[in-house]
């Protein structure tokens, strides 16, 4: 039981969500039974055995889908496990996450992807859809058994060497061609490796002052341009991971204008944070809490990314949730691991960057954080509108709350969030996975 629910039936007879705003529209009631949306309308009567969730003032969003999550299991269970990561996902409003392949061992065989998929099923907080590696061991030398992963119980459709760019043009071409056989997509971490040897942060004025080796925008843009041309040439699907520069946006816009099947994602942190923070922030200079790959860029890049997400050039928001234990961040900048956690703050950050700025409405958020990522990942059963007969994957969100971020209560095993102490809007109140609450009243159900 909790503050917002009544009746002690424990939801066995379903839930009546009372007074939520569907994508920001007028308040309505949503009856959830047997895993699907059973009825929508004002003044619905709760069947006797249904639990009532008071949702006045809350926005009802389709369950969020993340295309880019690092769950670290197998191999780095000290940073995150499938169980802890999916708890964090549920608390962030997610009903499905794509688990990245850079685990130890790498998810480059049917065995490993099935293991991750089953761990997700057992944990039960949200659906875990493994991403398969493009190359064996992420080594960039030979193709992994993409078909075996696609045919496995995990039914992999997204393949990525994330963290490592498939820089060999021939290998990238072959991967793009090969996955057409099972409607797969190659999700590329665009980073020209020779241009980023030793790279520590965005190359620009700040890196110049701080004496940190620069990660130039062109190292991302050059690979995106090449991959768009390759994808067009072989007629395949390309997905660009965590776009971070204004130039990348221009290239993707151009590729889409040609009608090519190119999609792209942006992280919440690239929509809000800039490289200035490496030099000057409330937590001091050189604090690796801001070290992420691709690096935080400039204000102009952030503005371009926001506009691109608003106009659809960038299709979706993906967290790149990258948990690291404290000892991997409490160190000198160069030695620190790259990445920040993001599942539990994604929706508030998107609200601040996109909704509160008037760039997106809640329908736009639903498109970019649920429908589009599910479509790109070929997930059925997620990214569906909240309509009668659809799977009841629903996130109830209170946009009116404002509170300082306190990661102490996070479900993720790691605490490497750059938002600690920062006031962010919004709070996920409840998450339903096929009609079953994974989060109620802001707490794991």
């Amino acid at each position, binding site marked *: 039981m909790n503050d917002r629910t009544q009746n002690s039936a424990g939801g066995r007879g379903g839930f009546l969500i009372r007074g939520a705003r569907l994508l920001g529209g007028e308040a309505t009631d949503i009856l959830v039974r047997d895993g699907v949306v059973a009825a929508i309308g004002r003044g619905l009567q709760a069947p006797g055995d249904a639990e009532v969730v008071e949702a006045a003032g809350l926005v009802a969003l389709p369950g969020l889908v993340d295309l880019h999550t690092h769950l670290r299991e197998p191999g780095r269970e000290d940073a995150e496990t499938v169980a802890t990561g999916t708890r964090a996902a549920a608390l962030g409003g997610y009903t499905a996450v794509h688990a990245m392949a850079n685990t130890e061992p790498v998810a480059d065989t049917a065995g490993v992807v099935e293991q991750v998929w089953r761990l997700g099923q057992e944990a039960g907080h949200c659906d875990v859809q493994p991403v398969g590696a493009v190359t064996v061991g992420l080594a960039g030398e030979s193709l992994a058994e993409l078909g075996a992963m696609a045919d496995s119980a995990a039914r992999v459709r997204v393949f990525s060497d994330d963290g490592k760019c498939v820089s060999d043009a021939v290998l990238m071409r072959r991967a793009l061609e090969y996955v057409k056989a099972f409607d797969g997509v190659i999700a590329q971490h665009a980073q020209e490796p020779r241009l980023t040897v030793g790279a520590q942060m965005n190359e620009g004025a700040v890196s*110049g002052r*701080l*004496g940190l*080796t620069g990660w130039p925008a062109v190292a991302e843009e050059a690979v995106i341009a090449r991959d768009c041309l390759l994808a067009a040439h072989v007629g395949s699907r390309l997905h660009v991971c965590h776009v971070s520069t204004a130039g990348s946006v221009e290239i993707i816009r151009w590729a889409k204008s040609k009608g090519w099947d190119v999609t792209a994602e942006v992280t919440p942190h690239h929509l809000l944070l800039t490289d200035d923070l490496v030099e000057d922030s409330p937590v*001091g200079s050189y*604090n690796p809490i801001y070290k992420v790959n691709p690096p935080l860029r400039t204000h102009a890049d952030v503005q371009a990314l926001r506009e691109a997400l608003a106009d659809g050039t960038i299709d979706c928001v993906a967290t790149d949730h990258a948990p690291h234990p404290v000892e991997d961040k409490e160190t*000198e900048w160069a030695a620190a691991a790259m990445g920040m956690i993001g599942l539990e703050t994604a929706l508030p950050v998107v609200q601040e960057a996109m909704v509160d700025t008037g760039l997106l409405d809640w329908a736009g958020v639903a498109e970019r954080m649920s429908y589009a990522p599910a479509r790109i990942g070929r997930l059925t059963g997620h990214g569906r509108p909240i309509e009668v007969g659809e799977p009841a994957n629903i996130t109830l969100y209170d946009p009116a709350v404002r509170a300082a971020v306190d990661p102490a209560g996070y479900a993720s095993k790691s605490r490497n969030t750059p938002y600690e102490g920062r006031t962010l809007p919004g709070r996920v109140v409840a998450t339903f996975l096929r009609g079953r609450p994974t989060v109620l009243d802001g707490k794991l159900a």
Partner: protein
Amino acid sequence: MRRHLISAADLSRDDALLILDTADELAKISERSIKKLPTLRGRTVVNLFFEDSTRTRISFEAAAKRLSADVINFSAKGSSVSKGESLKDTALTLEAMGADAVVIRHSASGAPHRLAGWVRGSVVNAGDGTHEHPTQALLDAFTMRRRLGSLEGRRVAIVGDVLHSRVARSNVLLLATLGAEVTLVAPPTLFPVSVGSWPCEFSYDLDAVLPKSDVVMMLRVQRERMNAAFFPTEREYSRRYGLDRDRVARMPDHALVMHPGPMNRGMEIAAEVADSPRSTIVEQVANGVTARMAVLYLLLGGAELGGEN
């Protein structure tokens, strides 16, 4: 002046002048037969060197000892950036040992910033990665001032691998604070892309800069740069950016030749130039001890340098 000296940008003009004036006073002591002051008796200075630098370590050690501080040399070579915990663990050890000041040399830019967050004592940056080396800039400014008087309006050319040079970064900041006009000279590959936003001029043409320079500071070219396509060959670099006798002849008569050492003789600087009367290279070494004495004295001696504490 703040509690730490991590960047030349930490120094206001008044701070910098106070350090240089203090160094002037302390220089007189170095001329005595007994070169020692009791000022820092009972204080502990730790030289924490994650990177080899015998010259800088000895210079700091001599400075601290001349002020009667207890000196602990902590060489952590090999553990620098290989595994993260080492710096924080070391910091906690130093805390437990009651270090009043930690002089840190580290291959990672920003390591002194991180250390400053973990220890209560003062942190002095003795060179961090490709970021800064503020006491080098102070000793350079001290050397220039002794030879040329005020630095206001003086023109300083800094020549060579600006991209990777902590000496150049610190000098640009400090010399700008002191009113000098700095021109950086290098091939375009050895400038950061953002050099246009620095408080200085820059040029690709050494010969054009030399006649209007009061000081020409040559930077060491590290051997690994020579194999990484920053320039075609050593010979071409030396021809375009090396300081030889012919080029010295184009400098004003009073102009100085400086180098932070160690030098590649015959590469960025000809041996005869390095050994000429214009060269301050040996003086810079001696002045290094004096300038570092002034820094330690002012950070630890209880005297405020003005500004925030």
